[in-house]
């Protein structure tokens, strides 16, 4: 009998997480459906993820047994709803390793989370450390989702500050060459994607946060494509704010999350005014509750928080390390497989290093709309267009791209179906 010894430094067997994709798929009712007479191959998880039975059931259970408004009732059902809602906050806090549940603000989506910070800044009095004015700068990047571009453009319009941005290299990485010039004494905030929704790139954080903090700027990470796919630990990341969204991480629509360091949240003035965010109200003036309540005006997404809590439990049960590993395997497989398709060009990193399971590409001479349509006709669901990242398309000189994005329930068979579908596309448009 021979024993194979794996050299040190190579991944050991023990490093490969247990992951049974078929078992995972059985949790997602929609994966059994057909599209145009073919089994659905859902490769659009970057757009929104599918929901496991556990999440759907948690929401139904809530509506059927514990539905009431929160934080306002002394009655039993209201207490149950409040505990469910606050329990979800605690789960989300643990999931990203926040210092306390009070650092988690529930909003409607990642877009609102980012806008919340932008409006808190423009609502800040001039004396505040958050205040912004002419001469001040905000830095974003060329690979941002519109939701991390437009709020800052509007903020600059409101305050007279200047918007600047990191460029993107041909290989699909943030160009950090000018870091020290771009992030300088005038910079008040740096906001960029932890993971690109188009290129799949996982962006570096320590060099940028270090430079930002050196010059006294705050850092917001748009982790909409990060938290669902890789382990995220806010204590490790060293950022000041993190935005993400429920529907991309097996949770329902209608809920997003802003995490912020508590001492910053405390300094932020309210943005939306209304019920539940107040301390006391007179007709003349009001005082406001401490965070997170200060930023949760009106009835919050209660059932959605319950759903998101269930999603977090589900992802934790499977293990974020295992999910990352599974998607890395898929990305490697897909990059290889797509490499065999003639005339296919990948935008972004072409090796499975520093990237997640989202791959955008072009097919010579065929418009992405046509690619998407033919793929749909054989049941393969991909996204086509500018992916809410038009400046990035402009950067690569194309009006649109085709994107396949994977998640924990994606299989190599589905990647094969994509490749077969692309053959079909080439036949029709050849």
């Amino acid at each position, binding site marked *: 009998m021979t024993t194979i010894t794996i050299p040190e430094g190579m991944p050991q067997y023990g490093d490969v997480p247990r992951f049974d994709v078929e078992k995972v798929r059985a949790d997602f009712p929609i994966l059994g459906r057909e599209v145009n007479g073919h089994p659905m191959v859902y490769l659009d998880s970057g757009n929104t993820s599918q929901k496991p039975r556990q999440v759907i059931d948690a929401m139904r259970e809530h509506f059927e047994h514990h539905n009431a408004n929160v934080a306002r009732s002394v009655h039993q059902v209201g207490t149950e709803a409040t505990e469910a809602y606050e329990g979800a906050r605690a789960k989300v806090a643990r999931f990203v390793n926040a210092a306390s549940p009070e650092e988690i603000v529930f909003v409607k989506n990642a877009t609102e989370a980012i806008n919340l910070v932008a409006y808190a800044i423009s609502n800040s009095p001039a004396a505040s450390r958050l205040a912004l004015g002419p001469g001040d700068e905000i830095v974003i990047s060329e690979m941002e989702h519109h939701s991390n571009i437009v709020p800052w453009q509007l903020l600059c319009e409101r305050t007279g500050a200047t918007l600047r941005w990191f460029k993107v290299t041909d290989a699909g990485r943030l160009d950090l060459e000018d870091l020290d010039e771009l992030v300088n004494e005038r910079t008040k905030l740096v906001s960029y994607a932890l993971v690109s929704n188009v290129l799949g790139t996982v962006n570096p954080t320590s060099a940028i946060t270090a430079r930002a903090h050196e010059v006294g700027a705050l850092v917001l990470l748009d982790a909409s494509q990060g938290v669902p796919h890789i382990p995220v630990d806010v204590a490790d990341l060293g950022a000041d704010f993190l935005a993400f969204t429920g529907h991309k991480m097996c949770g329902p629509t209608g809920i997003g999350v802003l995490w912020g360091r508590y001492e910053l949240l405390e300094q932020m003035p309210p943005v939306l005014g209304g019920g539940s965010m107040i301390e006391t109200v007179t007709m003349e003036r009001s005082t406001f509750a401490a965070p997170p309540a200060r930023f949760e005006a009106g009835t919050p997404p209660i059932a959605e928080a319950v759903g998101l809590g269930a999603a977090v439990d589900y992802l934790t049960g499977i293990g974020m390390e295992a999910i990352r590993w599974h998607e890395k395997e898929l990305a490697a497989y897909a990059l290889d497989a797509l490499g065999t398709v003639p005339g296919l060009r990948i935008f972004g990193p072409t090796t499975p290093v520093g990237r997640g399971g989202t791959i955008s590409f072009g097919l010579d001479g065929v418009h992405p709309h046509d690619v998407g349509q033919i793929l749909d*006709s054989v049941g393969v669901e991909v996204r086509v267009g500018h992916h809410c990242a038009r400046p990035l398309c402009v950067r690569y000189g194309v*009006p649109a791209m085709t994107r396949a994005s994977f998640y924990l329930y994606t299989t190599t068979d589905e990647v094969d179906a994509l490749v077969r579908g692309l053959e079909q596309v080439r036949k029709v448009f050849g």
Partner: protein
Amino acid sequence: MEFEQLYQEIILDHYKHPHGRGLREPVTGSSVGEAHHVNPTCGDEVTIRVAADGDVLADVSYDGMGCSISQASASVLHELLRGQHAGQAFKIMDGFVELMGGRGQVTPDEELLGDGIAFAGVARYPARVKCALLPWMAFKDAAVRAGVAGSSPSAAASEVQGS
């Protein structure tokens, strides 16, 4: 196969071998109007140039880039409208717009729409209807700019944004 409903031979043919593509200089004396339309969600672009000789559309030339549906639609538009009287051209346009808005429930009039009937299948794909309509909406604007009357109000007119 499903996609054959959408990608009729006729459409692919017009896409791969567009008829009369390219913006042409109008003969002197004719009244000219041009419009450039963009579909902001996918970046498809079409420019339509109408050269009118009194009531007759002496030339309808075009250029553009984008998906097969929008580009084939421009080619078909050129075929159908060039040389028509304005009244008939707008009748054809209305017929095409109606077909596109019909969600696959409208039976196309082959007499009126010629190769345009190949787009009947597109009407079943709401996301693609805008592609098919793009050149027609540009034509409408171009015709107005060329001073051609007879444009009837059309429900879909505001669907696609000009630029």
